[in-house]
Structures are given as C-alpha cells and as structure tokens.
C-alpha cells in the first residue's frame, strides 16, 4: 500500500490521456509512468479502458487529450510504425504475424535483425524453429514466442506485453518471465499486462491500476498487495441490490447437464460442472479463460478433445449445433448479430427456431405461430411495433428477441453468454426476472456474465473459471464482487497458486533475480 516513488526520469511518461468514442467515454484521465529498469503491471477490470489505453500507447489510436513521451520526446504517434521508431514495441494479444508468409519473410517485413532474433528465439526455448516454416502451420504458443523474439530483437526502450503468457505452457511461461525480468535488469522498461497475479508478483516492480478510464492507483508490488489492487479495480461503494436467487433449496434430481473434465486442447483445460433443472448457474471468468470454448462445446459449435457431457444422465457428443438443440441445449450468443436475422421482422425472428427443422420445409401453421410468438412478445415486454426490422430495435430489445425465440419454442436448457452486455439497467432487470421465471418453470440456465454484480442478481451459484479450469464454486449469497474478483484472478485457497502472505517466492516458480528455479 506504499505508493511507489514517482520516477524522476521516466522512460515512458503518459499523462492525462482522454479518449471518447461518440458518446462513450473510454478514457478520462489515464496516466502511466515507467522508469528505466522497471517492469510495470497495467491492470484493470473489464471495461476499465485498458485496451483503449494500450492502443493509444502503441499508436493505433490518437488520444483526444494528454501526451505520451518516450525518453522525454513527444510521441503521440500516428501509427504502430511510428511508435516503433520512438522506441516502444508492443507484443499484442493476438499474434501480429502474417499467416501466409514464412518466418523469414515476416522478419524481413518488419526489418528485424535476424541474428538477434535467433539469439532470442533460442533463449525463449524454441531453438529448433525453422526460418522457412509458414506461420499458418505453427501452433499458437510458438507464434507468441516468435512475436516476443521479434520485438526483443529490435532492442526496444519500452516493451509492452499484452497477455503475453495467456496461451503458453508452463515451461515457456518461465522462460518468458526470466527474459522479461532480465530486460528490466539491463535498464530497459517493460509494461506488463496480465490477469495473473503470480506472474505480476514474480517480475513486476509496480502496478498501475485503471478503473472507469481513470488511473486510480500506482503501487509498489509487495507481499499482500493483491487485495489492495483488487479493491482499486472494483472501486468503493459496490452496489448491493436484492438478488433473485431461489430461497428454497432445489430437490435432488438428475442433473439436466453434467460436464466432467471438459477440454478443447486450447484454452479450456479442465472444466466440470453440474446444472440442475430449476437452477441458474453463473459462470464467472476474465476474458479468454476458456468460457468461449465451454459454451461453444455445449452448443455443438466445437468438439471437445477430452471430457464428457451428460444431458439428463445420458452421455452426449454434439457434432453440429442441431444436435445440441435436439438435446434441449440452446445458446444465446454474446454477439446478437450472430443470432438474429437483422433485416427481418421481430415476428419472423422469434418464429424461426419453431420452423427450422429438417423435414419441415412446407407450410407454416400460421395460427399456432401467431399465438406462440404473440405470447413470447407479451412476456418480454418487447417495445416494438413488432413487424419492424430487428436491426431498428435498441440493443436491449434485440437481446430480448434472442431470448424470446427460445421461450416460444419451449426451452429446457438455456446457455446465456453475457446476455446483458451493453444494455440499459431496466432491460437488464427484465432479463434477470425472465431468466428466473424460466428456471421456476423447470428450465436450467447457464449464465456467463462479464459483470460480476450480476451473479448475485441473477444466479443461484457461480462457477469461477481461471486459466481453463474451474477454480471455485460460490453460492449467490457469498458472491460479492471482491470475492468473485479474487477468484477470477485465481486468488483462491483451492488452487494453491499463491500464498496470501508470502507471495511468489514460496511457489518456487521464479525469484526476482530472474533465475528459473
């Protein structure tokens, strides 16, 4: 909780950065100072403005106000190439390598010194990488390493790493952390963005925390600091609204959905959960922890590489979304545009799942359709001159349509993926009530949300996924935001990842001098 001393000669100094997109204010007053020889963690919850800040630092966006200085020179740069010239080299979350070119051609494209690239690539544990290998053919982990080696080879003053270790196996993570720490020890600077407190504790000197587009804190990393950081990310006055969780315990019945040891070979490594009829089960995870893959597998969009899925006690594998729908599992995707026919009417959109069955190409039973669709619209209070095109509705009403269509069909298991993202509070409340209604009628609902407060408002329990695994299961009554946030960052007793008092030295992963244990 000691504030870090303001570095006198900051290598990178961003002050007073503001940026708005139309009516949305992404950044109000963000700042970040990085001194030579420091690794600084940049942290913030979803929607804090982190990615906008990164884009401004790397020159992909221009700020409306404020300035970025590198080595004292103004570098409110106009392009990634410009940022590079001024000495800041980013490694983005998505690989920035050209898939159809070979490794060697990618190096030529960025004017990367090949000798130094070779040095770094072997330091990072991929000495066998062939220069004539096509990027398209390489696994994601190798691409991340390649991207990092390419960045290191130009010897940047400031290296910016955005979720560098997200897709890496443990041995490569250790090598990356060692190399990053060594960069700082050699007098360079690193901005390190990560959800993983273990890594931050292992290599970072300070952490700068963003919330709602403001820099709310700048602290030195020391034992026990993660509680303080979580607190800063959440802010004061966490709202406590009445939840909808069921008061009466569920009867012990056969689970509607039972998932064991599910893995996809990519981000999802080991997820097990049980969902009973009448239950709303929350799923809580930071971006990219495997929740997308989990929902994809359950909806039949993707196949699992390991694990089992049982529906009503029967083992199932879904080769196609139609299989999942036939088993009573229906997905409401996070991106409304994926689910709706934007140019057709509300009525047609709601009716579509009723009709879309093979062997039913013929006439539409008009009266039946009208009744069911009408009932669904009433139930949802969709504000609509209902014959209009869906794309003319507000986001909240569109989201209601995506749920209404499954009510009209009669749903057994509803998979909601972040259904309230970007919609107003009144509509959110309606959606919570609707979800609870469905559950009371015997439906089972799996509810992923990126907004932690919703767990209390809409769910009975929540599973927390971190790094592809379930790390905690929390009852709605205990699901206050700090608890969920800590769990989402992997800070739980059960994982044994981190010791609350002694920090990283006890995990035996790495110590601050950079030597791999």
């Amino acid at each position, binding site marked *: 909780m000691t504030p870090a001393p303001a570095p006198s000669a900051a290598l990178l100094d961003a002050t007073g950065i503001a940026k708005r997109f139309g009516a949305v204010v992404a950044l109000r007053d963000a700042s970040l100072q990085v001194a030579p020889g420091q690794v600084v963690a940049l942290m913030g919850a979803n929607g804090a403005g982190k990615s906008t800040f990164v884009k401004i630092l790397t020159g*992909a966006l221009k700020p409306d106000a404020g300035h970025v200085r590198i080595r004292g020179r103004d570098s409110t740069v106009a*392009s*990634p*190439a410009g940022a*590079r010239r001024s000495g800041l080299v*980013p490694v*983005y979350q*998505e*690989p*920035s*390598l*050209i*898939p*159809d*070119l070979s490794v060697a*051609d*990618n190096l*030529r*494209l*960025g004017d990367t010194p090949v000798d130094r690239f070779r040095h770094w690539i072997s330091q990072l544990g991929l000495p066998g990488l062939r220069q*004539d290998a*096509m990027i*398209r*053919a390489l696994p994601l982990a190798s691409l991340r390493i390649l991207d990092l080696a390419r960045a290191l080879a130009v010897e940047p003053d400031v290296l910016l790493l955005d979720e560098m270790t997200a897709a890496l196996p443990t041995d490569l993570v250790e090598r990356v952390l060692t190399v990053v720490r060594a960069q700082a020890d050699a007098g360079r600077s690193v901005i390190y963005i990560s959800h993983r407190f273990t890594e931050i504790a292992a290599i970072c000197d300070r952490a700068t925390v963003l919330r709602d587009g403001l820099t709310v804190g700048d602290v030195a990393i020391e034992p026990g600091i993660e509680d303080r950081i979580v607190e800063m990310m959440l802010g004061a006055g966490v709202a406590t609204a009445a939840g909808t969780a069921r008061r009466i315990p569920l009867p012990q019945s056969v689970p509607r959905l039972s998932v064991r040891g599910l893995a996809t070979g990519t981000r999802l490594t080991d997820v097990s959960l049980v969902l009973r009829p009448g239950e709303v089960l929350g799923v809580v995870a930071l971006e990219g922890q495997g929740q997308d893959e989990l929902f994809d597998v359950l909806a039949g969009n993707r196949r699992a590489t390991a694990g089992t899925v049982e529906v009503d006690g029967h083992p199932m594998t879904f080769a196609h979304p139609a299989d999942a729908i036939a088993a009573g599992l229906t997905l409401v995707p996070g991106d409304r545009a994926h689910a709706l026919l934007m140019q057709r009417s509300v009525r047609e959109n709601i009716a579509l799942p009723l009709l879309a069955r093979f062997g039913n190409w013929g006439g539409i039973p008009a009266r039946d359709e009208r009744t069911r669709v009408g009932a669904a619209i009433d139930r949802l209070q969709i504000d609509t001159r209902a014959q209009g095109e869906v794309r003319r509705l507000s986001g909240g009403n569109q989201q209601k349509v995506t749920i209404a269509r499954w009510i009209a069909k009669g749903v057994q298991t509803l998979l909601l993926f972040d259904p309230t993202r970007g919609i107003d509070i009144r509509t959110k409340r309606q959606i919570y009530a609707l979800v609870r209604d469905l559950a009371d009628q015997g439906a089972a609902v799996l509810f992923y949300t990126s907004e932690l407060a919703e767990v209390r408002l809409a769910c009975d329990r929540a599973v927390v996924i971190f790094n592809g695994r379930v790390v905690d299961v929390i009852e709605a009554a205990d699901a206050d935001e700090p608890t969920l946030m800590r769990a989402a960052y992997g800070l739980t007793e059960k994982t044994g990842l981190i010791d609350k008092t002694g920090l990283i030295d006890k995990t035996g992963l790495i110590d601050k001098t950079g030597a791999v244990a």
Partner: protein
Amino acid sequence: MMRVLAANGWTAGLAGLLVLLLVVTKLIQPSFGVSGLDNLARSALPFALATVGMAVVVIAGGIDLSIAAMMAVASVTAAVLMDGAGDGQAVFAVLAVLVVGLAMGALNGALIVVTRVPDIVVTLAMLFVWQGVALLILNAPGGGAAPWLRALAVGGVTLPGVPPALTDWLPRGFVFLAVVVAAIWWPIRRSKLGLMFYAVGSDSQAAYRSGVPVGPVRIAAYAVCGLFAALAGLAVTMGTGIGEPIPGPYLLASVAAVVLGGVVLGGGRGGILGPILAVIVLRLVRMDLTLLSVDPNTAAIIEGLIMVGVVMFGAVLATQGRKT
C-alpha cells in the same frame, strides 16, 4: 515444406495439363504447328497480361472490376498517339500509355483507401468511368500502331546468327509476355513491396501491427494492376493494329484464370505463373472446342464446368494433403 510443394504442385499440374492439351490439339488437328502456336500466343497475350494485373491485386486482398475498361483506355490512347507517327514518337506513345495505366490503377486504389468504399463497388463504378473515357478518346475502333511494335508480338523468334529453324517455333508473343513479367513482376516480388502485397492480402490487421503502411501498399497494388492493364491494352493494339474503345471479355476471363491459377480470392496466397498457365489453358480449351466445331454456346458451358471441376479437384487434393 509440404505447403511449398503443394503450391508449386498446383502450378506443375497446370503445366502438365497444358502439355496434355497441346498433345490433344495436335491429335484433333494434325496440321497444328508453328502458326497454330503463334495464333495461340497472339490471342492469349492480352488475356495473360490482364490476368497478371488481376492476380497482383487479388494477392494483395482486393479485386479490380475495371481492368477491361482500363485496357480499352490504354488501347485507344496508344492507337491515337501512334496513328501516322514515326518510330520515335511511337516509343513516347508506349511510355505515355504505361504512365496512364499506372495513374488509372493508382486512382482506383486511392479511391478505395481514402473513401473506404469496398473495392468491388469502387472498381465497378470506375469500370463505367474508364469505359466512358475510352469512348471519348476514340468513339469507334481506329487509329494505328507502329510496325515495330506489332512485330514484337507477331511471328516466331529470330536471333541473329542462329538458323531460324531452331528458334522459329517459339512465338514472339510468349517471349514478350515472359520479358514483361520478368522485368516488372520479378523485381517487385523480390522486393519488400512484394512481401507487403502478400502481407496485406493475408491479414491486413497483422500487417498494420507489423508496421506495414497498409493504405499505400494497397494503392501500389492497384497501380501495378493498372500498369499490366495498360500493357494488355497495348497488346490488343499490337495484335489488331488499331485501338478498341469497347472493353473485351477480359474481366471475367482474368478472374477465372486467377482462381484456376491457384490464387486464393481473399488474398495472401498464390503466385503469377499459375494464373498465366491457367489463362493459356483456357484459351487452348476454347481453341480445341472450336476446332472440334462444338457450338460456341455449348463450348461456354463446357468451359464453365471445367473451371468448377478443376477448382473442386484442387480443394479435394488440399484436404487429402492435410489429412496425410
């Protein structure tokens, strides 16, 4: 390694198909020989140059629907400038036409990059613009071409000191094509610009993050396409001796050859040799069908089916390759 083999395998397959078709042609028409080859070269030259231009733009992730109209502008510009002019002025005319081609292409590209209107819409609009421009320059076929220019693409190769019998079978049209492509595309392909074409076509977002100036590279790709369109238009005038203000069937033919030649619509993958071989294959198929006195309408249907068949065959080969 597999991928390099697969990419070159496609081109090799096309070369094999071409040889096979030449044998078939000889069987259908035993008199097919030097003059037949020369005919093929002359008819294929404008198609081949247009195809190279289209291939460059498609590799860079775009498409240019105005290519045949740009050819018409180039053809009439050349014919008007050279009409009754001396040899020296004709050289100037050729250079002027190439500059006009570069400028037309660059304008197409700049409009796409600056307005952010999709390439397919911009170049469709420019198709009409260039069509109008061509008719304004010359409202009916006419004009002239310098004899030396025509001689570049007509007849067999003759080398001083070498008996004509040894070289005469090789049509000048093919030599012209090879020289032009080697002189323009080869240096680009070897340069960083060529790499950037592939990079932008493959993943423009990743290219941007790698520091590639995506906008200027797009414009450059369209400019190179314009340059090849100008050469193709020039080839039309070389072949006929006059300027043609009405665009020929080059647009769809070039897209067809690009696809058949192994360039992926959407960008980033493929080369130039494949599309060139493909365009010659398509011309030869048409020639054979004519020799077999197949009804032209039926011939068109057969050509279409061949295209779908070959591309489907390629996709099957690709999936098989991935499995093993």
